[in-house]
């Protein structure tokens, strides 16, 4: 990568991170949402620890998917509203790189934080402790994929008035493989087997998504900006 593009990426990520860190609510609210929804499941399924342990990987992953959808709608919103997105689209640097910087900073503050906090939720749902490292790794990789697919949906709906539900509608079918591989990895680990196959597939989705999703997001952004 020529040094100029690397500098651009780093500067954009720093800008997004410092803007987001000024509003700690944006980081904590999704975590609290996660905590509350995880609490709803035992209330719905019953307190039997065996049942909860059985469903724990699925519950944690589905809630992670839903919370990533709720935060994805904010992905390009701020930059779209104050005109920065238009300037980025007109800049000589690839718009895909700007989109990637947005996704990376968003992932660092939502996905990685979630992965680090996940042992708490695993303990609440009585997940076997041997599965917890796999849970954290799969969530870290998986939330990257979810942020990438969320970015595609967000890019297509950023200019729309009621884009929130539409975003979920568009993004959920694309996230099905991530959910399947993520839960697969955690279930394998919970049973004591080796989850590396599933994690490798998650990694492949993340790698492919990191290359292709910013391009799709950039195309979506140009359409939303009518450029």
């Amino acid at each position, binding site marked *: 990568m020529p040094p100029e593009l690397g500098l651009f990426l780093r500067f954009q990520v720093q800008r997004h991170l410092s803007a987001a860190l000024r509003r700690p609510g944006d980081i904590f609210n999704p975590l609290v949402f996660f905590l509350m929804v995880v609490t709803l499941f035992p209330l719905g399924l019953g307190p039997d620890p065996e049942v909860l342990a059985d469903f724990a990987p699925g519950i944690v992953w589905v809630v992670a998917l839903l919370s990533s959808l709720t935060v994805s709608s904010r992905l390009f919103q701020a930059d779209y509203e104050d005109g920065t997105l238009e300037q980025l689209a007109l800049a000589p640097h690839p718009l895909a790189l700007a989109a990637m910087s947005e996704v990376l900073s968003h992932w660092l503050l939502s996905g990685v934080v979630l992965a680090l906090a996940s042992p708490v939720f695993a303990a609440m749902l009585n997940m076997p402790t041997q599965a917890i490292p796999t849970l954290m790794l799969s969530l870290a990789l998986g939330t990257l994929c979810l942020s990438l697919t969320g970015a595609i949906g967000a890019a*297509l709906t950023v200019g729309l008035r009621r884009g929130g539900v539409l975003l979920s509608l568009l993004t959920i*079918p694309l996230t099905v493989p991530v959910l399947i591989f993520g839960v697969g990895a955690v279930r394998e680990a919970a049973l004591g087997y080796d989850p590396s196959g599933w994690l490798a597939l998650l990694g492949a989705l993340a790698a492919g998504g990191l290359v292709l999703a910013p391009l799709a997001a950039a195309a979506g952004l140009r359409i939303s900006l009518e450029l």
Partner: protein
Amino acid sequence: MWTFVHKMGSPPWFYRFATIMIRWLLPTVLLALLAGSVWGLLYAPPDFRQGNSYRIIYIHVPSAVVALAGYYVMAIAGLVSLVWKIKMADTAMRAVAPVGAALTFVALVTGAIWGKPTWGAWWVWDARITSMLILLFLYLGVMALFEAYDDKAAAAKACAVLSLVGTVNIPIIYKSVDWWYSLHQPASIKFTGESAIDATMLYPLLLMIGAFYALFALLVLLNMKAELLQTHRQSAWLRSELR
């Protein structure tokens, strides 16, 4: 041949082409559907294991095949419109979406109707059924995205991008659901295996598949013609056509 392709990008030429095609397709489709249905429902032999309830295959399989193919037609039309900026390709993509969604729905419902006597359940989370359900969601997503935009030109571009993203995802989704299903095999449901199908059952099925492809073409052309009638209702060429 390229002249023909270029001509199809022009609304007056396409309108005349569509009118001629519909005039030929309509009787063909009706005849083929009638022949295939009668052959399959009345004259094909009953199945060894399923008796007569397997006959819904003559609607279920063709609609599923064409629904899957239709998604690729929509995605390719979107690609053509994005790359070569041909507006008729936009119209084609928008015309395919509801037809494809309807066919997917028919496939799912006929599958459920077939499943009740065969497996004892209206719905099973089988790999193919789940993938078809996600295909329905993808179609509905494209339709919803088009409705959400006020600027219809931008809407068409957005739908093209979404269909292309979905195209990349369909093989991944199918394979992942396949692995998911094979690892979570439910013990009680016995999935009737794909036995080699006899010629007396195969030929009506092939006829019905062909009939459904022709039906798909007919419905898409009708949709496109309706779209042209609405968009170009003020133009001189259309008024002279309708006179």
